[in-house]
């Protein structure tokens, strides 16, 4: 980069100088290479890493990590990565084989480490063996980001991992994380206020795939669902029937679709329960950039406002 260019691009001058000052040893080509397994943690990584990292997100917007088929290009990216950010708790079913295939030596960082995990020995989903429904355990719910306080743990884990991999960039990562953590604290308060505005006995929603147990725990909205945490499991007619009973008993207010799965099951539930669809909640993935939930903060805001609007009729 020449002096001419710097003076010509006056506004960017300070930014460039600042960057040059903070990372003298890392040229543009030597960015920290980061792979995030899915869009939500990709967003966290983008915020913490800023332009010091080269980010590849495997499972993109509106996509379901449960059914993701990794590509050879993903394996190549993993092999070249310095840091691989994963959710853990068996959320990324494809991960083990992908890591093996890649032969990567990158640090694999489990972001749910240290998070407050919903451990429910009865958690899981139904499975059918010889026509018999058998409940199968998934005792640690992986959808921990649906709690903002857990999201803060993810962010802290990312900052720590980036600092370990790139000590020179550490002050920048920590500064980015600190600003974002304040934003998340405010987001948590905002969600609580929004839920408080919903009459207490109306805080019952219905979804197909219960990815919202952390939201339920932290913010007090009950979610009813016919199945467990894996979208690969099918809900049987019997499950739906008992769900309909539960919906009536608990006077659930609305049924919601999810961005990562098609709405056929929830449409069936809604029609059987005599409820209408209250909109789409974002569970396991962000929306595309032009959608209503293209960042984590927007995702949480969108979910709570969608819940509130459908339940209170506003």
């Amino acid at each position, binding site marked *: 980069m020449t002096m001419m260019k710097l003076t010509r691009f006056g506004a960017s001058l300070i930014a460039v100088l600042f960057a040059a000052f903070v990372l003298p040893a890392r040229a543009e080509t030597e960015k920290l290479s980061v792979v995030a397994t899915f869009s939500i943690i990709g967003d966290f990584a983008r915020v913490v890493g800023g332009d010091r990292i080269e980010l590849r997100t495997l499972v993109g917007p509106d996509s379901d990590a449960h*059914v993701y*088929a*990794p*590509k*050879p*290009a*993903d*394996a*190549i990216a993993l*092999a070249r990565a310095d840091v691989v950010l*994963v959710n*853990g*708790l*068996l959320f990324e*079913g*494809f*991960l*083990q*084989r*992908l*890591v*093996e*295939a*890649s*032969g*990567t030596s990158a640090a*694999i960082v*489990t972001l749910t*480490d240290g998070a407050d995990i919903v451990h429910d020995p009865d958690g*899981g*989903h*139904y*499975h059918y*063996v*010889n*026509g*018999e*429904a*058998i*409940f*199968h*355990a*998934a*005792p*640690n719910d992986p959808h921990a980001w649906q709690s903002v306080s857990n999201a803060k743990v993810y962010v802290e884990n990312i900052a720590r991992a980036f600092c370990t991999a790139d000590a020179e960039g550490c002050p920048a990562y920590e500064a980015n994380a600190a600003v974002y953590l304040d934003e998340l604290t405010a987001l948590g308060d905002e969600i609580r206020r929004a839920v408080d505005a919903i009459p207490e006995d109306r805080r019952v929603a219905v979804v197909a795939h219960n990815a919202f147990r952390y939201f339920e725990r932290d913010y007090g909205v009950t979610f009813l669902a016919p199945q*467990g*945490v*894996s979208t*690969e*499991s099918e809900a049987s007619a*019997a499950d739906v029937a*008992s769900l309909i009973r539960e919906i009536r008993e608990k006077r659930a207010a609305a049924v919601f679709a999810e961005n990562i799965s*098609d709405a056929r099951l929830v449409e069936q539930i809604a029609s059987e329960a005599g409820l209408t669809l209250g909109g789409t909640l974002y569970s396991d993935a962000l929306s595309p950039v032009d959608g209503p939930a293209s960042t984590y903060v927007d995702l949480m805001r969108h979910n709570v406002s969608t819940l509130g609007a459908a339940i209170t009729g506003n």
Partner: protein
Amino acid sequence: MRRLTLGASALAIAATLGGGVAFADEDDVTAWRLFVSDHAEPVVKVIDALDGDLLDTFKVEGPATLHRTSSGAAVFAVQGGAGEVNAIKSGIAFHDHGDHGDIDIDDAELLHVPIDGSKPAHFVEVQGNIAQWFDGEDEVRVFTEKAVLEDKLDVRTANVGAPHHGVAVPYQNHVVVSIPNPEDASKRPIGARVVDFEGNTVGEDVACPGLHGSAGSGSLYALACDTGLLLIKQEGGAPTIEHLPYASSLPEGSSSTLIGGKGLQYFIGNYGADRIVIVDPSEGENGFQLVQLPTRRVHFTVDPIRSRFAYVITEDGQLHKVDVLDGKIAQSLKVTDPYSMDGHWSDPRPRVAVAGENVIVTDPLNAKLHLVNAETFAEAGEIAVEGKPFNIVAVGGSGKVHDDDGEEAHAHSHEHAHSHGDDQIYKGYFEDSQIKDRALSDWEGDWQSVYPYLQDGTLDPVMAHKAESGEQTAEEYKAYYEVGYKTDVERITIDGDIVTFFKDGKPLKARYASDGHEILTYEKGNRGVRFIFKKVEGDADTPEYFQFSDHKIAPAKADHYHLYWGDDRAALLKEVTNWPTYYPSSLNAKEIVEEMMAH
């Protein structure tokens, strides 16, 4: 029993993820079966890939080409010459439970659903939907794997214009079918279209001149054309078709045979006689890598376990391990004598499959299978197979097994379905060498019958629980258990070799000694073990024999058991409806209910 060898990175990941990764646990079971057809004889042989034992030989109508479904639960024998397709239940089934996978192992079985028609050829399965193509018919037949496994055939048909050598890819309510050449249907198809089962075409026809060859990988299905690949995917409603042209960097050529990656989403096609092309569709124009082979290709297959690799056998008898990421041959090994690609396309030549840690190569002219270790790429053994072993598919893997002695499987298994981890017990599959005789001390203690609890309504919540998740009502379950639990022996104590039966409060005492065990094969095809004890001396009213069934096959303390007793050892083995059941006398009614509900 052998296990899959795990790479260090896999273990590292297991540790990183901090969860109970199934494969890392000690009570996993591994099973692999080879299904091998003969070049000349109408047979399909089932061979245990781990010990080379011939398990079954199924007679079919003609020499067969074999296909397995993605679940591995079924293998299809397509007999083009004989105009017949047979389905075989592989006997190995997996159930994914998120935090672990289960494996169910039964005998393989030739199912009673032969499908006959004119010139059966391409077989395609996508998520349990199967399209069987008949070159001599103007309709493709579509049915489900699930129905076939239940010995039923619920065929739907879709029109394909005119009889031709084509292919169909089945989805829930649609089929992608090849479009015959309008000038001469005996030439290769010219494209593909989406149709439904009511005769409607959905969307536009997509050109695919010279269409031949198809494969699936993850959620994508690919058809090979002279111009590129057609990529089919389904998101929501009807499937959509996209054309991906061959990269401009490739030399002149095209694919007519495809295989699809497992664990990684890619395709490999032939590209001329002595080259293959690896395609990562997500990378578009940049996703093509050409690999030169030393001689002409005979056959290829992907490694479903070590996703990075695929294997190609060439006519010089070399097996090549292809690194899909690098686009290079990583290793080569001379495995068979040369098999020239000159001569008829259907001459006997090697075929390749992957079973667990080994790559298996058929050697039809030498009546054997070669085993090559996939990691070390060294010869790992041979299996002799009579005749000309030709086509081969492998089915298997590792999973957890549940203790379930089968005889009560219908309603009772639920109680035991989740005690895995305690001991190595599982439904219906074990090698005989794994069964160990057990001493009476395994059942030492004071035991109470649970029959009175069933009668007085204590177990009603258990029945309601079963009904909630099962397919029968609580009343039906109760009736079933009424027959199962019924007994007039309310208590049993076992102390050393002295067993005391309490019948209406009256003790009957005798000394018993081990009389071995018997393996029962139940109607459903699974197996169980009865541990048998014979009276040495004691009260006249005590039974000559009793037999324990507690879902265990080797020494371990029983937590509850089912007991069969009487004076005729052989007759007792036939008893499968009445299985008086005993829990420790120290448990109160509430604890027994909890115990039953917990599983």
